[in-house]
Protein backbone atom coordinates (compact mmCIF):
# COMPACT_ATOMS: atom_id res chain seq x y z
CA UNK A 1 0.00 0.00 0.00
CA UNK A 2 1.45 3.40 -0.91
CA UNK A 3 2.54 5.47 2.01
CA UNK A 4 0.30 8.42 1.10
CA UNK A 5 -2.74 6.15 1.24
CA UNK A 6 -1.63 4.79 4.56
CA UNK A 7 -1.18 8.30 5.89
CA UNK A 8 -4.68 9.17 4.76
CA UNK A 9 -6.25 6.39 6.78
CA UNK A 10 -4.09 6.54 9.88
CA UNK A 11 -7.05 6.96 12.12
CA UNK A 12 -8.97 4.10 10.53
CA UNK A 13 -7.36 1.58 12.86
CA UNK A 14 -6.29 2.39 16.38
CA UNK A 15 -2.87 1.75 17.85
CA UNK A 16 -3.87 -1.55 19.45
CA UNK A 17 -5.26 -2.89 16.16
CA UNK A 18 -2.16 -1.84 14.30
CA UNK A 19 0.26 -3.38 16.77
CA UNK A 20 -1.81 -6.56 16.92
CA UNK A 21 -1.73 -6.84 13.13
CA UNK A 22 2.01 -6.06 13.12
CA UNK A 23 2.54 -8.86 15.63
CA UNK A 24 0.99 -11.22 13.12
CA UNK A 25 3.50 -10.06 10.52
CA UNK A 26 1.19 -7.60 8.70
CA UNK A 27 3.65 -5.10 7.26
CA UNK A 28 0.90 -2.82 5.92
CA UNK A 29 -0.29 -2.27 9.50
CA UNK A 30 3.25 -1.50 10.50
CA UNK A 31 3.50 0.92 7.58
CA UNK A 32 0.55 2.82 9.08
CA UNK A 33 2.44 3.16 12.34
CA UNK A 34 5.40 4.42 10.32
CA UNK A 35 3.24 6.90 8.41
CA UNK A 36 1.83 8.29 11.65
CA UNK A 37 5.06 8.73 13.56
CA UNK A 38 8.03 8.86 11.17
CA UNK A 39 7.90 12.62 10.51
CA UNK A 40 7.97 13.57 14.15
CA UNK A 41 10.56 10.90 14.87
CA UNK A 42 12.91 12.27 12.22
CA UNK A 43 12.55 15.77 13.63
CA UNK A 44 13.31 14.61 17.18
CA UNK A 45 16.23 12.50 16.00
CA UNK A 46 17.61 15.43 14.05
CA UNK A 47 17.27 17.63 17.11
CA UNK A 48 19.27 15.12 19.11
CA UNK A 49 21.91 14.20 16.54
CA UNK A 50 22.25 17.34 14.44
CA UNK A 51 22.60 15.38 11.20
CA UNK A 52 19.94 14.14 8.79
CA UNK A 53 21.71 10.91 7.82
CA UNK A 54 22.25 10.01 11.48
CA UNK A 55 18.65 10.91 12.24
CA UNK A 56 17.40 8.61 9.47
CA UNK A 57 19.62 5.78 10.73
CA UNK A 58 18.27 6.21 14.24
CA UNK A 59 14.66 6.23 12.99
CA UNK A 60 15.28 3.11 10.90
CA UNK A 61 16.84 1.32 13.88
CA UNK A 62 13.96 2.43 16.08
CA UNK A 63 11.37 0.97 13.71
CA UNK A 64 13.21 -2.35 13.53
CA UNK A 65 13.23 -2.49 17.33
CA UNK A 66 9.57 -1.46 17.52
CA UNK A 67 8.63 -4.28 15.16
CA UNK A 68 10.63 -6.82 17.12
CA UNK A 69 9.23 -5.55 20.40
CA UNK A 70 5.63 -5.48 19.19
CA UNK A 71 5.09 -8.96 20.62
CA UNK A 72 5.98 -7.79 24.10
CA UNK A 73 3.94 -4.59 24.36
CA UNK A 74 0.90 -4.65 26.65
CA UNK A 75 -2.34 -3.56 25.06
CA UNK A 76 -3.28 -1.39 27.97
CA UNK A 77 -0.15 0.68 27.49
CA UNK A 78 -0.04 3.54 25.03
CA UNK A 79 1.89 2.93 21.88
CA UNK A 80 3.25 6.43 21.26
CA UNK A 81 5.34 6.93 24.43
CA UNK A 82 6.83 3.48 23.98
CA UNK A 83 7.74 4.27 20.34
CA UNK A 84 9.40 7.57 21.24
CA UNK A 85 11.26 6.05 24.18
CA UNK A 86 12.76 3.51 21.78
CA UNK A 87 13.66 6.34 19.40
CA UNK A 88 15.45 8.32 22.14
CA UNK A 89 17.47 5.23 23.06
CA UNK A 90 18.38 4.65 19.41
CA UNK A 91 19.49 8.29 19.16
CA UNK A 92 21.71 7.89 22.21
CA UNK A 93 23.19 4.73 20.66
CA UNK A 94 23.71 6.36 17.28
CA UNK A 95 25.24 9.40 18.97
CA UNK A 96 27.67 7.18 20.84
CA UNK A 97 28.55 5.18 17.72
CA UNK A 98 29.25 8.26 15.66
CA UNK A 99 31.31 9.73 18.49
CA UNK A 100 29.04 12.73 18.51
CA UNK A 101 27.78 14.05 21.72
CA UNK A 102 24.18 12.89 22.05
CA UNK A 103 21.75 15.80 21.88
CA UNK A 104 24.30 17.75 19.89
CA UNK A 105 24.04 21.52 19.63
CA UNK A 106 21.44 22.66 17.20
CA UNK A 107 23.58 24.85 15.04
CA UNK A 108 23.87 22.55 12.03
CA UNK A 109 21.44 22.76 9.13
CA UNK A 110 18.84 25.28 10.25
CA UNK A 111 15.29 24.67 9.09
CA UNK A 112 14.67 25.84 5.55
CA UNK A 113 11.74 28.04 6.56
CA UNK A 114 13.60 29.51 9.52
CA UNK A 115 14.07 33.19 8.86
CA UNK A 116 12.67 35.14 11.81
CA UNK A 117 15.51 36.56 13.93
CA UNK A 118 13.84 35.29 17.11
CA UNK A 119 13.69 31.77 15.69
CA UNK A 120 17.40 31.84 14.87
CA UNK A 121 18.22 33.17 18.32
CA UNK A 122 15.97 30.60 19.96
CA UNK A 123 17.65 27.74 18.10
CA UNK A 124 21.03 29.03 19.20
CA UNK A 125 19.91 29.50 22.81
CA UNK A 126 18.39 26.01 22.95
CA UNK A 127 21.83 24.57 22.35
CA UNK A 128 23.01 26.25 25.53
CA UNK A 129 20.44 25.17 28.09
CA UNK A 130 20.29 22.09 30.30
CA UNK A 131 19.75 18.96 28.10
CA UNK A 132 16.77 17.70 30.11
CA UNK A 133 15.10 21.10 29.98
CA UNK A 134 15.86 21.31 26.27
CA UNK A 135 14.29 17.91 25.63
CA UNK A 136 11.09 18.83 27.45
CA UNK A 137 10.93 22.17 25.62
CA UNK A 138 11.46 20.40 22.30
CA UNK A 139 8.84 17.73 22.86
CA UNK A 140 6.24 20.14 24.25
CA UNK A 141 6.74 23.36 22.32
CA UNK A 142 8.23 22.15 19.05
CA UNK A 143 6.68 18.70 18.57
CA UNK A 144 3.41 19.52 20.29
CA UNK A 145 3.22 16.67 22.81
CA UNK A 146 1.10 17.17 25.91
CA UNK A 147 2.75 17.13 29.34
CA UNK A 148 1.25 13.69 30.06
CA UNK A 149 2.88 12.38 26.86
CA UNK A 150 6.23 14.07 27.53
CA UNK A 151 6.18 12.55 31.00
CA UNK A 152 5.45 9.08 29.61
CA UNK A 153 8.16 9.35 26.97
CA UNK A 154 10.84 10.57 29.35
CA UNK A 155 9.55 8.41 32.22
CA UNK A 156 9.26 11.34 34.59
CA UNK A 157 6.30 12.62 36.62
CA UNK A 158 4.01 15.04 34.80
CA UNK A 159 4.81 17.70 37.38
CA UNK A 160 8.51 17.37 36.56
CA UNK A 161 7.73 17.85 32.88
CA UNK A 162 5.91 21.12 33.70
CA UNK A 163 8.70 22.24 36.01
CA UNK A 164 11.43 21.53 33.46
CA UNK A 165 9.49 23.35 30.75
CA UNK A 166 9.19 26.40 32.99
CA UNK A 167 12.89 26.25 33.81
CA UNK A 168 13.74 25.83 30.13
CA UNK A 169 11.74 28.92 29.23
CA UNK A 170 13.33 30.88 32.06
CA UNK A 171 16.81 29.95 30.83
CA UNK A 172 15.87 30.74 27.25
CA UNK A 173 14.33 34.07 28.19
CA UNK A 174 17.48 35.03 30.04
CA UNK A 175 19.72 34.04 27.11
CA UNK A 176 17.52 35.76 24.55
CA UNK A 177 17.35 38.93 26.64
CA UNK A 178 21.14 38.94 26.98
CA UNK A 179 21.64 38.44 23.26
CA UNK A 180 19.23 41.25 22.44
CA UNK A 181 20.81 43.79 24.77
Amino acid at each position, binding site marked *: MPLAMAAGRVKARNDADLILASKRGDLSAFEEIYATHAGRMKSIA*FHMLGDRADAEDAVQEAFLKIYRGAGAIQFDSHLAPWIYRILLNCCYDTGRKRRHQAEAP*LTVEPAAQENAP*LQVALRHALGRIHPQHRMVFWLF*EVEGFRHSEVAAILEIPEGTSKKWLFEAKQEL*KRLLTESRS
Partner: protein
Amino acid sequence: MTFDCKDLERALAVPELLPDAREHAKVCDACRRELWLWSEMSNVAPGLRQEWDTPDLWPKIRETLAAQQKAARPRSFDWRILAVAAALVMAVSVFVVMRWRPGSSAPAARQDSDFLTEQTLKEVEQSEAAYRASIDKLSRLAQPKLNASDNPETIADREKLLVLDSEISEVRSTVDRNRFNARLQTELAVLYREKQDTLKEILQRAQKY
Protein backbone atom coordinates in the same frame (compact mmCIF):
# COMPACT_ATOMS: atom_id res chain seq x y z
CA MET B 1 -3.54 42.78 44.16
CA THR B 2 -0.95 45.43 43.41
CA PHE B 3 1.25 43.97 40.72
CA ASP B 4 4.89 44.93 40.67
CA CYS B 5 7.79 44.15 38.27
CA LYS B 6 9.21 41.73 40.82
CA ASP B 7 5.98 39.70 40.65
CA LEU B 8 6.48 38.92 36.97
CA GLU B 9 8.53 35.72 37.42
CA ARG B 10 5.89 34.31 39.74
CA ALA B 11 3.15 35.26 37.32
CA LEU B 12 4.88 33.30 34.55
CA ALA B 13 4.78 30.20 36.75
CA VAL B 14 1.20 30.70 37.95
CA PRO B 15 -1.18 31.23 35.01
CA GLU B 16 -3.86 32.70 37.31
CA LEU B 17 -1.61 35.73 37.86
CA LEU B 18 -1.11 36.39 34.15
CA PRO B 19 -4.10 38.74 33.73
CA ASP B 20 -2.62 40.98 36.46
CA ALA B 21 0.77 40.78 34.75
CA ARG B 22 -0.76 41.83 31.42
CA GLU B 23 -2.52 44.70 33.07
CA HIS B 24 0.75 45.85 34.62
CA ALA B 25 2.56 45.41 31.28
CA LYS B 26 0.34 48.06 29.73
CA VAL B 27 2.21 50.66 31.74
CA CYS B 28 5.65 48.95 32.04
CA ASP B 29 7.85 48.58 28.95
CA ALA B 30 10.32 46.14 30.55
CA CYS B 31 7.61 43.74 31.72
CA ARG B 32 5.81 44.06 28.37
CA ARG B 33 8.97 42.95 26.54
CA GLU B 34 9.44 40.02 28.95
CA LEU B 35 5.86 38.88 28.56
CA TRP B 36 6.06 39.19 24.80
CA LEU B 37 9.25 37.12 24.72
CA TRP B 38 7.71 34.47 26.98
CA SER B 39 4.74 33.87 24.71
CA GLU B 40 6.64 34.46 21.49
CA MET B 41 9.04 31.60 22.33
CA SER B 42 6.08 29.23 22.23
CA ASN B 43 4.78 30.81 19.03
CA VAL B 44 8.00 30.46 17.05
CA ALA B 45 9.10 27.10 18.52
CA PRO B 46 7.03 24.90 16.13
CA GLY B 47 8.94 26.54 13.27
CA LEU B 48 12.10 24.86 14.51
CA ARG B 49 10.69 21.48 13.58
CA GLN B 50 12.65 19.75 10.86
CA GLU B 51 10.78 18.12 8.01
CA TRP B 52 12.26 16.53 4.96
CA ASP B 53 11.26 13.80 2.53
CA THR B 54 12.79 10.38 2.88
CA PRO B 55 11.19 8.28 0.15
CA ASP B 56 13.79 5.52 0.62
CA LEU B 57 13.42 5.12 4.37
CA TRP B 58 10.24 3.01 4.56
CA PRO B 59 11.30 0.70 1.67
CA LYS B 60 14.60 0.13 3.49
CA ILE B 61 12.81 -0.71 6.75
CA ARG B 62 10.29 -2.94 4.96
CA GLU B 63 13.06 -4.77 3.11
CA THR B 64 14.96 -5.46 6.33
CA LEU B 65 11.82 -6.65 8.11
CA ALA B 66 10.84 -8.88 5.20
CA ALA B 67 14.33 -10.42 5.16
CA GLN B 68 14.13 -11.05 8.89
CA GLN B 69 10.69 -12.64 8.56
CA LYS B 70 11.98 -14.84 5.74
CA ALA B 71 14.98 -15.91 7.79
CA ALA B 72 12.76 -16.79 10.74
CA ARG B 73 9.98 -18.56 8.85
CA PRO B 74 11.56 -21.82 7.56
CA ARG B 75 13.05 -22.61 10.94
CA SER B 76 9.82 -22.25 12.88
CA PHE B 77 7.97 -24.16 10.13
CA ASP B 78 10.35 -27.15 10.38
CA TRP B 79 10.17 -27.55 14.13
CA ARG B 80 6.41 -27.16 14.34
CA ILE B 81 5.87 -29.85 11.72
CA LEU B 82 8.39 -32.02 13.51
CA ALA B 83 6.75 -31.51 16.90
CA VAL B 84 3.26 -32.25 15.60
CA ALA B 85 4.48 -35.32 13.70
CA ALA B 86 6.35 -36.67 16.72
CA ALA B 87 3.33 -36.15 18.97
CA LEU B 88 1.09 -37.95 16.49
CA VAL B 89 3.48 -40.88 16.06
CA MET B 90 3.80 -41.30 19.80
CA ALA B 91 0.08 -41.02 20.41
CA VAL B 92 -0.63 -43.60 17.68
CA SER B 93 2.10 -45.92 19.06
CA VAL B 94 0.70 -45.73 22.57
CA PHE B 95 -2.77 -46.41 21.25
CA VAL B 96 -1.68 -49.40 19.10
CA VAL B 97 0.40 -51.00 21.87
CA MET B 98 -2.38 -50.66 24.43
CA ARG B 99 -5.07 -51.81 21.97
CA TRP B 100 -3.26 -55.04 21.01
CA ARG B 101 -2.06 -55.94 24.47
CA PRO B 102 -3.12 -59.53 25.33
CA GLY B 103 -6.31 -59.67 27.32
CA SER B 104 -7.27 -56.13 26.49
CA SER B 105 -9.86 -56.95 23.85
CA ALA B 106 -12.79 -56.36 26.18
CA PRO B 107 -13.30 -52.70 26.98
CA ALA B 108 -12.47 -51.99 30.58
CA ALA B 109 -14.57 -49.74 32.77
CA ARG B 110 -12.01 -47.09 32.01
CA GLN B 111 -10.10 -47.06 28.68
CA ASP B 112 -6.60 -47.99 29.89
CA SER B 113 -5.00 -47.16 26.51
CA ASP B 114 -5.78 -43.47 26.93
CA PHE B 115 -4.83 -43.15 30.60
CA LEU B 116 -1.70 -43.63 32.63
CA THR B 117 -1.53 -45.75 35.75
CA GLU B 118 -0.39 -44.17 39.04
CA GLN B 119 3.02 -45.79 38.64
CA THR B 120 3.48 -44.59 35.03
CA LEU B 121 2.32 -41.11 35.96
CA LYS B 122 4.91 -41.01 38.70
CA GLU B 123 7.60 -41.94 36.18
CA VAL B 124 6.34 -39.41 33.67
CA GLU B 125 6.37 -36.66 36.29
CA GLN B 126 9.89 -37.59 37.36
CA SER B 127 11.07 -37.43 33.79
CA GLU B 128 9.29 -34.09 33.33
CA ALA B 129 11.05 -32.70 36.39
CA ALA B 130 14.38 -33.85 34.96
CA TYR B 131 13.58 -32.14 31.64
CA ARG B 132 12.66 -28.94 33.40
CA ALA B 133 15.85 -28.93 35.46
CA SER B 134 17.94 -29.53 32.35
CA ILE B 135 16.05 -26.81 30.43
CA ASP B 136 16.49 -24.30 33.26
CA LYS B 137 20.20 -24.96 33.27
CA LEU B 138 20.47 -24.66 29.49
CA SER B 139 18.34 -21.49 29.51
CA ARG B 140 20.66 -19.83 32.01
CA LEU B 141 23.62 -20.60 29.75
CA ALA B 142 21.89 -19.63 26.50
CA GLN B 143 20.26 -16.39 27.70
CA PRO B 144 23.40 -14.20 27.44
CA LYS B 145 23.97 -15.49 23.90
CA LEU B 146 20.39 -14.73 22.95
CA ASN B 147 20.58 -11.23 24.39
CA ALA B 148 23.96 -10.44 22.89
CA SER B 149 23.01 -10.46 19.25
CA ASP B 150 20.24 -9.25 16.95
CA ASN B 151 21.14 -11.24 13.86
CA PRO B 152 18.26 -13.01 12.06
CA GLU B 153 19.27 -16.44 13.39
CA THR B 154 19.18 -15.25 17.02
CA ILE B 155 15.89 -13.44 16.45
CA ALA B 156 14.43 -16.65 15.01
CA ASP B 157 15.71 -18.58 18.05
CA ARG B 158 14.14 -16.08 20.41
CA GLU B 159 10.82 -16.27 18.59
CA LYS B 160 10.91 -20.06 18.53
CA LEU B 161 11.57 -20.20 22.28
CA LEU B 162 8.74 -17.77 22.93
CA VAL B 163 6.33 -19.90 20.90
CA LEU B 164 7.56 -23.06 22.63
CA ASP B 165 7.13 -21.48 26.06
CA SER B 166 3.60 -20.41 25.29
CA GLU B 167 2.72 -23.88 23.92
CA ILE B 168 4.31 -25.58 26.93
CA SER B 169 2.35 -23.42 29.31
CA GLU B 170 -0.87 -24.07 27.35
CA VAL B 171 -0.38 -27.86 27.32
CA ARG B 172 0.74 -27.83 30.95
CA SER B 173 -2.40 -26.09 32.09
CA THR B 174 -4.45 -28.75 30.26
CA VAL B 175 -2.31 -31.53 31.77
CA ASP B 176 -2.86 -30.08 35.24
CA ARG B 177 -6.57 -30.67 34.78
CA ASN B 178 -6.07 -34.20 33.41
CA ARG B 179 -2.81 -35.67 34.68
CA PHE B 180 -3.57 -39.24 33.60
CA ASN B 181 -4.06 -38.38 29.92
CA ALA B 182 -1.28 -40.16 28.01
CA ARG B 183 -1.68 -38.12 24.85
CA LEU B 184 -1.29 -34.80 26.65
CA GLN B 185 1.70 -36.04 28.63
CA THR B 186 3.33 -37.20 25.37
CA GLU B 187 2.66 -33.86 23.75
CA LEU B 188 4.22 -32.06 26.70
CA ALA B 189 7.28 -34.31 26.61
CA VAL B 190 7.75 -33.59 22.89
CA LEU B 191 7.63 -29.86 23.53
CA TYR B 192 10.13 -30.11 26.39
CA ARG B 193 12.40 -32.17 24.17
CA GLU B 194 12.11 -29.58 21.41
CA LYS B 195 13.00 -26.74 23.78
CA GLN B 196 15.93 -28.68 25.17
CA ASP B 197 17.24 -29.41 21.65
CA THR B 198 16.82 -25.77 20.61
CA LEU B 199 18.78 -24.52 23.61
CA LYS B 200 21.53 -27.09 22.98
CA GLU B 201 21.67 -26.01 19.34
CA ILE B 202 22.05 -22.33 20.38
CA LEU B 203 24.89 -23.18 22.73
CA GLN B 204 26.65 -25.35 20.18
CA ARG B 205 26.39 -22.62 17.58
CA ALA B 206 27.73 -20.04 20.06
CA GLN B 207 30.74 -22.26 20.73
CA LYS B 208 31.57 -22.42 17.01
CA TYR B 209 31.76 -18.63 16.65
